[in-house]
């Protein structure tokens, strides 16, 4: 009997693959724009949103989207630069975590749900969830494809993009909002604490192996998808948390990448 005879495993593979693809692509731009910690903060804002939704008795995705979009718009409005260097990130991150715990507490929400929000759950993904994930992933990838050239220019050469007359503020806010949407759907599967990992580690690893933007996007997506598949298989056979295996796979790719990068650097110097 294979693991794929179970509906929940099939669903987990479909949902996980789509989310990994989306995070893999988004990650390349998150890393290029130095937004790793802002991504981490938005996932925590998402945790507060999901906790609020549970407290208010509404669909978690609505709570997640409402909070993360507001948070992303706030960050965009105040200026990403300030958030990159300021303590504001830690203040908002801590406040979001506190708010989440507060909503869970006053809503008398069970501990299991809190764990799911923080660490994710691949059990219990139904077809309605999958369609939701398909729609959001398709939307995010479509927007990324349509804005690819502008986003790429602004992410890798802001001076040039600004001089070429691109609306860099609009691009910045637009990308943050897209990140919020992607985070909202990802939190439900991998949890608030691990969204950050899936959105940044595959991309950080990919840039160690390749020097082209398209190559980074392909490799980052591939690493993210393989890590999710590895996590699901390993989790199924060992009963250990899937998220652990996902992060372990991504981290292994990253550390192997640093070794590869150093070796290829040495080879180039020797040549």
């Amino acid at each position: 009997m294979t693991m794929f005879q179970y509906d929940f495993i099939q669903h987990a593979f479909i949902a996980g693959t789509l989310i990994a693809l989306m995070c893999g692509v988004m990650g390349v731009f998150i890393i290029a724009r130095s937004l790793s910690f802002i991504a981490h903060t938005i996932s925590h804002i998402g945790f507060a949103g999901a906790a609020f939704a549970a407290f208010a008795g509404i669909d978690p995705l609505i709570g997640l989207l409402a909070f993360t979009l507001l948070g992303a718009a706030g960050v965009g409005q105040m200026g990403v630069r300030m958030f990159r260097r300021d303590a504001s990130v830690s203040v908002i991150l801590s406040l979001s975590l506190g708010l989440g715990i507060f909503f869970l507490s006053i809503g008398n929400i069970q501990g299991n749900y809190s764990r799911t929000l923080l660490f994710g759950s691949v059990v219990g993904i139904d077809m309605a969830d999958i369609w939701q994930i398909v729609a959001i992933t398709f939307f995010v990838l479509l927007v990324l494809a349509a804005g690819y050239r502008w986003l790429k220019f602004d992410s890798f050469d802001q001076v040039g993009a600004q001089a070429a007359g691109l609306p860099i503020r609009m691009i910045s806010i637009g990308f943050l909002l897209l990140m919020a949407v992607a985070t909202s759907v990802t939190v439900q599967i991998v949890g608030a604490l691990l969204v950050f990992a899936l959105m940044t580690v595959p991309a950080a690893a990919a840039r160690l192996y390749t020097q082209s933007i398209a190559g980074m996007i392909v490799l980052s997506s591939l690493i993210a998808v393989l890590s999710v598949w590895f996590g699901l298989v390993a989790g199924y056979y060992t009963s250990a948390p899937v998220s652990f295996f996902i992060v372990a796979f991504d981290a292994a790719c990253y550390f192997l990448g640093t070794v590869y990068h150093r070796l290829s650097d040495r080879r180039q110097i020797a040549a």
Partner: protein
Amino acid sequence: MLHKIQIDKLEVNFHGEEILKDLSFSVPAGQMFAIIGPNGAGKSTLLKSILGLVRPQHGSVSIAGDPKKTVIGYVPQSRIIDEETPINAKDFVSLGLISRMVPWLSRQEKKGLKEIMRFTDTERLAKKPIGKLSGGERQRVFLAQALVRRPDLLLLDESTANLDPDAQVRMMALVKKAVKEWGVTVLFISHDLRLVRDYADQVLIIARGFYKTGATETILDDAALLKQVFELPAEDAGSGRDPLNASEMPLSASSS
């Protein structure tokens, strides 16, 4: 003569401080136009006003032709490029191709990209990470990115400042070639008066509250003017030395 840029009574203030005041001049199409002056004279602000990145308090910047179709290329003195930046030179140049929305490059765009990289002698650097290139190679890649959209107007903000003399000449020769072959109009800021003498058709000399335009020789041979603007002792201004670049080296033309 057809003018590419017309600056009319331009006034720019920053935090209440007057940077440019009542500045008017025009740049003929298809020429190389140098902007010289001491630090803080407002040279970069002027380029930013032309790019539309700085809004003037008064006056106007007019560029001939349809503003929606006018393409401006810009090469700054330097960009903050992390050595570990993984993006290769070819990708960096292709960033400038923004006229289409689809993620992939068309056959024509690929051809144009190849031509520009050949033109700027950056073809062999195509696969090298931008962070690992030398200063001169990097500036040529930046120039290639600025040229890849075939600009009508090219603005160079001290883009040769950090280069050794050979790399400076190589870069400026490429710019001159772009002017000759494509009729690009070039505005360049430089502190190196030798380069200005060798490459500029006309010069704008600018200091706080003062400016003058004229043919290159007229401006650079006016020792009293250089003395006034750069606040140099008369003997230095008239000596033909580069007044800003630690120069014991004589200016190529005036030293003869």
